[in-house]
């Protein structure tokens, strides 16, 4: 995309951000409010020498991008909560077989088909715990059209660097909202490529990790013997169904993210320095909270906002950093609230079941109550 200013929706910015990050393969099945991502990718990927496939369903979509990732491409799919529910089996497979993929979830009111065109934040826990088993993924969640574009670059870089699925969260409001966005010149975009084996095929164990706990990833078709199994496997990639192999593999899959958590954490600390009360918020909801914090400050209440941009791994050190009461404002009936509560006793939930974000005065009233 030519550098400059554009007027885009969150969905368009997500698609363009992915292309700018180097994504050249997309397989998906349209669903509101993510469909415009597919629409944009269908238009733009062929122009960039990439491939777009409209799949038969969400299960096919995620299977296709996992396969395409093994060919060395940067890959993505996008859906909404109902689609993630279908994809979760293969998200576990991608985590277990360490395949870099980016999955966008444009969150809408839920459970089930819920509120297709309206916002929800009910998939925050699902992003981390959707598939079975103990594994770590990375999840990012922007709050503006500009940040959607910028953060997509990070999403792909994380996926490639850590060989992990990245669950990129947006929400119905952000997906369909238009704002001004600046696209930087191509040479200012930093792209990270996955590590490749430096040894010839006959000397390479494809799941042997380096010191950073991340194994280099060969491309299919280059002579490396690739056995990628969802079964517990050894460094060769072959099933080894023992507690010892499980311990080695599953511990490493988790540790490769946990030990790099601080590099992955992104938060915005808005007026938190001198705050007496901090509201934790994410995505579109944080835009209401930001205004409420400003309004509270005008009344003399020292309020601040901790905006989680990295949702997973959970940036708990930022919660521990402040010794003040917290409010967690989220569009669900309590999810990140429970994570915050792990690190502080003094926390209150400001929930909303979905369909809209909190009005700024609803947040303001909660702030006033908390400091009384």
């Amino acid at each position, binding site marked *: 995309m030519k550098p400059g200013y554009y*007027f885009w929706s969150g969905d368009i910015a997500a698609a363009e951000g992915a292309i700018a990050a180097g994504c050249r393969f997309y397989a998906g099945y349209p669903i509101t409010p993510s469909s415009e991502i597919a629409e944009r990718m269908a238009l733009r990927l062929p122009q960039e020498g990439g491939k777009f496939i409209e799949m038969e369903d969400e299960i096919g979509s995620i299977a296709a991008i996992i396969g395409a990732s093994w060919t060395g491409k940067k890959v993505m799919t996008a859906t909404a909560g109902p689609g993630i529910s279908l994809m979760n089996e293969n998200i576990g497979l991608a985590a277990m077989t360490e395949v870099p993929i980016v999955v966008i979830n444009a969150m809408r009111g839920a459970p089930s088909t819920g509120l297709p065109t309206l916002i929800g934040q009910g998939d925050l826990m699902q992003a981390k715990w959707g598939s079975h088993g103990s594994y770590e993924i990375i999840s990012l969640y922007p709050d*503006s059209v500009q940040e959607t574009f910028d953060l997509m670059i990070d999403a792909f870089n994380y996926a490639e660097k850590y060989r992990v699925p990245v669950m990129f969260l947006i929400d119905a*409001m952000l997906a*369909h909202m238009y*704002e*001004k966005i600046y696209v930087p010149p191509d040479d200012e975009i930093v792209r990270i490529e996955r590590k490749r084996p430096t040894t010839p095929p006959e000397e390479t164990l494809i799941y042997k990790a380096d010191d950073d706990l991340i194994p280099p990833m060969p491309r299919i078709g280059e002579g490396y013997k690739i056995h990628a199994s969802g079964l517990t496997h050894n460094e060769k990639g072959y099933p080894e169904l023992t507690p010892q192999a499980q311990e080695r593999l599953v511990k490493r899959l988790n540790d490769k993210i946990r030990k790099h958590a601080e590099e992955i954490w992104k938060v915005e600390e808005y007026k938190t320095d001198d705050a007496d009360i901090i509201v934790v918020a994410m995505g579109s909801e944080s835009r209401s909270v930001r205004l409420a914090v400003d309004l509270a400050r005008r009344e003399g209440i020292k309020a601040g906002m901790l905006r989680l941009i990295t949702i997973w791994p959970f940036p708990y050190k930022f919660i521990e950093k402040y010794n003040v009461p917290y409010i967690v404002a989220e569009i669900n009936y309590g999810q990140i609230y429970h994570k915050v509560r792990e690190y502080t006793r003094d926390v209150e939930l400001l929930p909303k079941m979905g369909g809209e974000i909190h009005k700024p005065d609803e947040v303001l009233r909660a702030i006033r109550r908390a400091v009384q």
Partner: protein
Amino acid sequence: MRIEIKFGGLGGQGIITAGYITAKAAAIYDGKESAFTQDYSAEARGGASTSEVIISDEKVTYPQVIKADYLVLMSQSAYRDYLDKLKEGGTLIIDEDLVKPDEKAENFKIYKIPATKFAEEIGNPIVANIIMLGFFTAITGVVSKDAMWKSIEERIPQRFLELNERAFLKGYEYGEKMKKM
């Protein structure tokens, strides 16, 4: 500075397009910040349709209308549904053949234009929303005339530009006249 604008009408009247054009004009051509959101029913035509534009000198926080400074309406049902979104002393802009205000609108500044009738006279009722935008631009001044036109120009297919330019100017000139009255 935070200016809130709400457009309301029926699917097919170009209510979403009007909001998009206005928000883009402010952000891209007037160099301000803006956010544009939309809401429409499942029907392609005839269902309720509304769009919201927030314009600000700084990054827009809450992206939707809290209390609108300007309410631009093109159907009676939109009048019924959205009038309470207009802030005290706010400005109500209506297609006078499609919206009949009652006593509830007494405390607002009201500007009326027969936009759909004008559009038919120009040759196509489809440009009624562009006439409304011309009218809105002249009345409110929240977006410059140049910016609004550039934004229209970019949104409308080339072959309809001449028609839309006539529509925009018709609305703008009518607005200039009404403002003086």
